């Protein structure tokens, strides 16, 4: 039994105006906050859920330099404490809209507050992509899940499927293999995309099995997931197999619901396009982390984006 008090939030008094407002308290936002306060700016981080972002739902992290192995929750706590220690402020609320004035940015919150800032960094991260098959929405949270650390223990000694073949999918399959009886990785190609370290681990687990060249066509059940309809794309064979749950890790989409439509330059999926300083096409607005159009989405690259954005903001616009 453990007792955590890290997320304790006393609703703080917030000021009306900051040099730098950061949307999202994941690794990108927390690092931007750290560099912001180091540079002398007044900084407010707005977070709707929990500082740490996706790190909170990652069991163990083994590729953030300096930590051979650290739990996602622990790294989240350390990053938040680090930024707070040097004076960054935090406020728990969801950003629901933005307004751009000549020399100010207005950030609107769901508790009816509006905050002014000279510079804005969007570090709102990403959310899981859906499979878009029949039954997925119907059974979401009834056996269909996008988070193994959140929902894994409802599948103790059960048979689950993991869809995907990248780092997240394979990492989470390994995590689930400690809980579930059997984990089947369903992947549309004939080899994994995940880093070799994770691949080796997955291959060495007896209770992780692989369905190569396979796609899920339908998720079936009554009150909860009962089976998957799977198609082998090589042989075109279609069959139904019983599963108690299915975890989907097939990629991500940007978290951008609060952005004014069509104002920002994005790629076809909505990821924000920036220059090498993380500046978007809008004056004084930066983007950092998973929400950006980029190749490698990891904690270390999110942190790096945040550092670059805040440092550049201080030089370009804040003249501190």
């Amino acid at each position, binding site marked *: *039994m*453990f*007792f*955590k*008090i*890290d*997320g*304790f*939030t*006393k*609703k703080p008094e917030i000021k009306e105006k900051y040099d730098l407002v950061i949307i999202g308290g994941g690794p990108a936002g927390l690092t931007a906050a750290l560099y912001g306060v180091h540079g002398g700016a007044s900084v407010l981080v707005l977070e*709707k*859920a*929990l500082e*740490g972002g996706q790190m*909170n*739902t990652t069991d163990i992290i083994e590729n953030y330099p300096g930590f051979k192995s650290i739990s996602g*929750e622990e790294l989240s706590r350390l990053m938040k404490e680090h930024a707070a220690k040097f004076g960054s402020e935090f406020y728990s*609320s*969801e950003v*629901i809209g933005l307004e751009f004035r000549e020399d100010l940015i207005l950030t609107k919150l*769901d*508790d*009816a507050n509006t905050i002014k800032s000279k510079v804005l960094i969007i570090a709102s991260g990403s959310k899981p992509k859906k499979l878009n098959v029949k039954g997925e929405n119907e059974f*979401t*949270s*009834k*056996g269909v*899940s996008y988070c193994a*650390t*959140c*929902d894994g*223990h*409802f599948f103790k000694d059960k048979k689950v499927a993991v869809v995907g073949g990248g780092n997240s999918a394979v990492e989470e399959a390994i995590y689930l293999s400690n809980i579930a009886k059997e984990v089947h990785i369903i992947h549309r190609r004939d080899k994994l995309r995940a880093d070799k370290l994770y691949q080796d681990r997955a291959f060495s687990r007896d209770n992780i099995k692989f369905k190569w060249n396979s796609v899920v066509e339908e998720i079936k059940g009554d*009150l*909860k997931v009962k089976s998957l309809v799977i198609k082998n794309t090589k042989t075109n064979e279609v069959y139904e197999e019983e599963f108690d*749950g299915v975890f989907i890790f097939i990629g991500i989409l940007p978290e951008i619901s609060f952005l004014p439509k069509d104002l920002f330059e994005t790629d076809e999926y909505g990821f924000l396009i920036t220059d090498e300083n993380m500046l978007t096409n809008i004056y004084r607005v930066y983007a950092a982390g998973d929400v950006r159009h980029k190749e490698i989405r990891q904690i270390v690259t999110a942190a790096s984006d945040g550092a670059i954005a805040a440092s550049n903001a201080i030089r370009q616009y804040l003249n501190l």
Partner: protein
Amino acid sequence: MEKLLDRETRIKVQEILENMEDNVQLVLIKGSDDYSEILEQLLNELKELNDLIEVKVFSADSFDYDLYELDRDLLPAMFILDSEGIDYGIRFYGVPGGHEFITLLQDILIISTKRIIDFSEENIEKIKSIDQEMKIRVFVTPTCPYCPKAVLAAHQTAIINTNIIGEMIEANEFKDLSDKYNVKSVPHTVIEVKENGVWKMKNQFIGAYPQNNYILEILKAVQ
């Protein structure tokens, strides 16, 4: 007996509890299971950290269930009363361990200072407008980082409107009930409304919703 809260945690909890203003009473109804023992110990450790905390322990047969709206089937059960013994409808079924421990501390502070920390004026008015008896049951697990937000929302809703009970239910401890509502993902919020003396499920949703959406879901249950 070994302490549940380690030294470092105790110091931090003490700091948090320094913000208390008035007495609060933590009322525990124990069963004969291990969780009941753990929860009793936890409450006693909290009491040691601040004099304003009182702890009252009852066994299920010695407790007068007629006085409070409580689910008799779920033990341990705990609720919080203010210095005058007023019940604000905050319920904990099972141990608020892991991330959920924060919720308990936050509830203690809210009851002790009478300050709601979350909702906007407009949303408070909307909550006040509910004139039917309602139970907001939030299923959680100790390892769920987003759950405290959902439970705190339910508890604060209960504090704002006396028609409403806000419950934390530890899904691992109460498997049968979790199965009944088909809990497969947490936080899982179930909203029940009393109609002709019987509780009826009116709505349910999964996840910690942003404030405005949360209020919408609550209001849907009484439309």
